[in-house]
């Protein structure tokens, strides 16, 4: 146990991304990371199933992606900052993804913000 993370398990709704997690989920993290390349984005949009298979994803991972289950992907061990790249390709803003992870509608989520117009 990394002593710098002592007690983090008591913070609800939070998933520390560490080497152990990353080692288990490197493929799916790479799949999302590759979305920074225009060529990969285009290939994915044309043939999502083919590109997911090529990336070595397992069935659980493919299913989470098909459903765009953002929270499920985070819980599976995907780093948010590669997921964010996928959000661009899926044409979701970060704020929309945040609302989904909280299980709220976008408008309800924005009402909880101080400046709901800052989009």
């Amino acid at each position, binding site marked *: 146990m*990394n*002593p*710098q*993370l*002592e*007690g*983090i398990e008591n*913070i*609800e*709704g*939070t*998933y*520390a*991304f*560490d*080497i152990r997690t*990353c080692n288990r989920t*490197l493929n799916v*993290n*790479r799949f999302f*990371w590759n*979305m*920074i*390349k*225009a060529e990969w*984005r285009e290939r994915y949009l044309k043939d999502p199933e083919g590109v997911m298979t090529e990336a070595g994803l397992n069935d659980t991972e493919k299913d989470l992606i098909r459903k765009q289950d953002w*929270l499920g992907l*985070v*819980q599976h061990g995907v*780093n*948010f*900052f*590669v*997921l*964010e*790249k*996928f*959000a*661009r*390709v899926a044409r979701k803003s*970060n*704020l929309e993804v*945040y609302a989904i*992870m*909280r*299980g709220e509608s976008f408008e309800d*989520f*924005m009402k*909880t*913000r*101080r*400046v*709901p*117009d*800052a*989009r």
Partner: protein
Amino acid sequence: MAKIIGCIGTSHVPTIALAYDRGRQEDPAWKPLFDGYKPVAQWLEDKKADVLVFIYNDHATTFFFDMYPTFALGVGERFPIADEGAGLRNLPQIKGDVDLQAHIAESLVNDEFDLTIFQNKPIDHGCASPLPLLWKHEPDWPGAIVPIAVNVLQYPLPTPRRCYKLGQAIRRAVESYPKDLNVVIVGTGGLSHQIHGERTGFNNEEWDLEFLELLQNNPQKLLDMTHADYVRLGGAESVEQIMWLAMRGAMPEKINKIHQNYYLATTTAMTVVLFEGDEVSAGADQATAAAAAANA
């Protein structure tokens, strides 16, 4: 000799870049953010800042987890700004200074900081998001960047204390560079925010203001905290505030706040703060540093 003339703490959320690129500078929801940077941009121009040492983090753009560095320093005359999934931004390539970057790298490695050196790679919004708010850049940037990327994504992260020590070593590196350059240290990230999991949207303004106060007057207290403490108090992604500690480490013991803007609009407490070293105490600090170096 090169000298550090001040430091800037700034958020780096991609939202800033997005609003900037969309020309939202006068939009009522965004104006308080952009206006908050104007005194800092003016100060940089007035003080003729030649170099910004940018302590920022990569967000799995330049680097992937197949090879993720704790501290990485970029060397190059130019760095493209990265496409992070939404295409390229209309900005000139970031400008570097190979001789200065190499000097700082040599100084830090000889000072027992185990850098990774990167070259010829595009740079992430951790640096590129606040940069155009700080420096005018038409047709080109007025000075050079020394990009120093810190791992705040994949635990284990460098400890808060290690980041502070990095800042102290950056000061030694800058002050041993023989050219007359005005150098500003920029620490990026935060303040409170969490953008993953069910706790997404967490903020803590009280802690943010306490952090800013401690940063100026009692940074040692911030060094004793664990990463879990930062996550608890400011939200998971606020742990990146350890980069502000690196900035702080490069400054003298006493610093004066010249400007601060805190704007919590949606999910991140967007903040910019500018400090200068206290002129009166600076002499004493330098004597202490010299004594420490002699004993090392």
